């Protein structure tokens, strides 16, 4: 019997072989150490993400999320839904809010769900992995299993948007949230101060408006470098992908020499808890975090 059990909503990017598979790997290792049991919601589907707004109407988008709620509720009764992806978390939470505040919408959603042989009674709480860590366990608990503090390593905690706005982590300010810095410090690393902590990475516009997105990404990485960071740390798959994958393109366009690894908080924690490179999913980083790999090797 684990000390905490949740209905796990990995989301499209955090599946095996998907763009954030290394996130998944590290989260699993981290949870193992922390004795958190995450049971995947059977046959969960995509949240629709914010970007699907233009094609889908409100109801179809809500229905998609409602289906996940129904599945979680029936198969994992009484468990809160935990998402690791910022977009999944936001999409689900927004859907929950609207369903609970708009009876017409709820009724229509139920009618749609019936087509899939489902219905919702009570919508479970929607939590982000980070909330579980700092609210249900707390920094002290998270510090206990630390075997190898990440001494002398400088990270820029890159919070980005969707774990931060509009809901955010309780007690944090939208403009200057501290939780990621605290997590970094909890595992013995140093969190550098820089002013791009909550700048948007361009999100989905990395695809459709690459110039705009990359210009923003440049600001973020640059500021991280300027303030002495060796690596970026983020809680969001899309932030991770955007800030990591496009560094090459940015170098081409701006003549910069960016080569900054971008990690997930869960990877740092896994390592600090004594996990291997593999368990931390370091092999999943396009820009290899060699310093961490050596650290893990020791």
């Amino acid at each position, binding site marked *: 019997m684990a000390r905490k059990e949740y209905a796990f909503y990995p989301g499209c990017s955090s599946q095996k072989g*998907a763009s954030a598979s290394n996130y998944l790997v590290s989260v699993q290792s981290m949870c193992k150490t922390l004795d958190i049991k995450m049971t995947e919601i059977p046959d969960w589907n995509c949240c629709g993400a914010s*970007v699907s707004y233009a094609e889908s109407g409100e*109801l179809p988008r809500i229905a998609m999320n409602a289906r996940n709620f129904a599945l979680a509720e029936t198969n994992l009764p009484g468990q809160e839904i935990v998402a690791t992806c910022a977009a999944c978390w936001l999409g689900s939470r927004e859907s929950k809010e609207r369903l609970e505040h708009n009876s017409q919408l709820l009724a229509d959603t139920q*009618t749609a769900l019936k087509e*899939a042989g489902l219905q919702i009674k009570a919508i479970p709480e929607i939590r982000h992995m980070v909330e579980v860590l700092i609210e249900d366990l707390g920094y002290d608990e998270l510090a206990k299993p630390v075997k190898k503090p990440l001494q002398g390593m400088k990270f820029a905690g890159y919070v980005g*948007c969707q774990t931060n706005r509009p809901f955010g982590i309780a007690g944090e300010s939208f403009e200057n949230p501290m939780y990621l810095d605290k997590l970094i410090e909890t595992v013995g690393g140093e969190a550098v101060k820089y002013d791009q902590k909550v700048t*948007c990475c361009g999100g989905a516009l990395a*695809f459709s408006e690459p110039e705009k997105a990359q210009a*923003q990404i440049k600001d973020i990485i640059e500021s991280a470098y300027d303030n002495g960071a060796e690596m970026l740390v983020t809680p969001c798959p899309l932030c991770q992908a955007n800030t990591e*994958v496009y560094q090459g393109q940015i170098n081409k366009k701006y003549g910069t020499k960016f080569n900054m690894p971008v990690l997930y908080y869960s990877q740092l924690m896994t390592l600090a808890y004594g996990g291997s490179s593999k368990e931390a999913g370091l092999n999943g980083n396009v820009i290899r975090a060699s310093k961490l790999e050596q650290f893990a090797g020791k």
Partner: protein
Amino acid sequence: MSDLNQEMADRYKNNFLKEIEEQAEMGEWVKMCMQCGLCSGSCPTNFHSGWDHPPQEIFMLIRAGKREEVLNSQGMYMCTSCYNCYVRCPRKVPVTHVMHGIAEYAYRIGRAPKAQPTMHLSKTFWTNATKTGRVNEVQLTQSLYFKEGIGAGIKKAMEMQSEALGLVKAGRLNPMEALGMGHKCKDIKGIHAMLAKAEELEARNKAAKGKE
């Protein structure tokens, strides 16, 4: 599609604000804007290259009944969903959602600007995600690159080759997905039925409005 546009134009005569309030998701918030400019000032994309209309100008245009200018605007598609405007708005207007809502409406009645890249992305993403219930990242990427035809697609694919390769090496991009293998939901039928019903209901609700 465009006759739906005509139908709406006729239904709301010159009252574009009412049209938006009833037809666009969260459109009822447009009237609450006090033109302080905080949203436009908070928007990340606006910094880098100008766009035709930032959020609060869109709101003002709607009130001024400038239907074409709004529906054709690129503005809504510049939204990265960063929610800066949303959390800062002194009138608590959910700016992000209003922008999304107007974009969806423009698209629905066939007035969205042609070849709007984000529009295209949005469409592609949704189609992709709902086809199997889960996103097929490779196909998504492909269909995005090839939106302007094979040539452009290959060019872009080449540009992005190193990135893609990197991802593949890192085990974060599964070439097999190109062949439609990989992630999908079991109950695809159920999902499609559900979505069909949802779209039907939504259409019915919207159609019911503004008809007294």
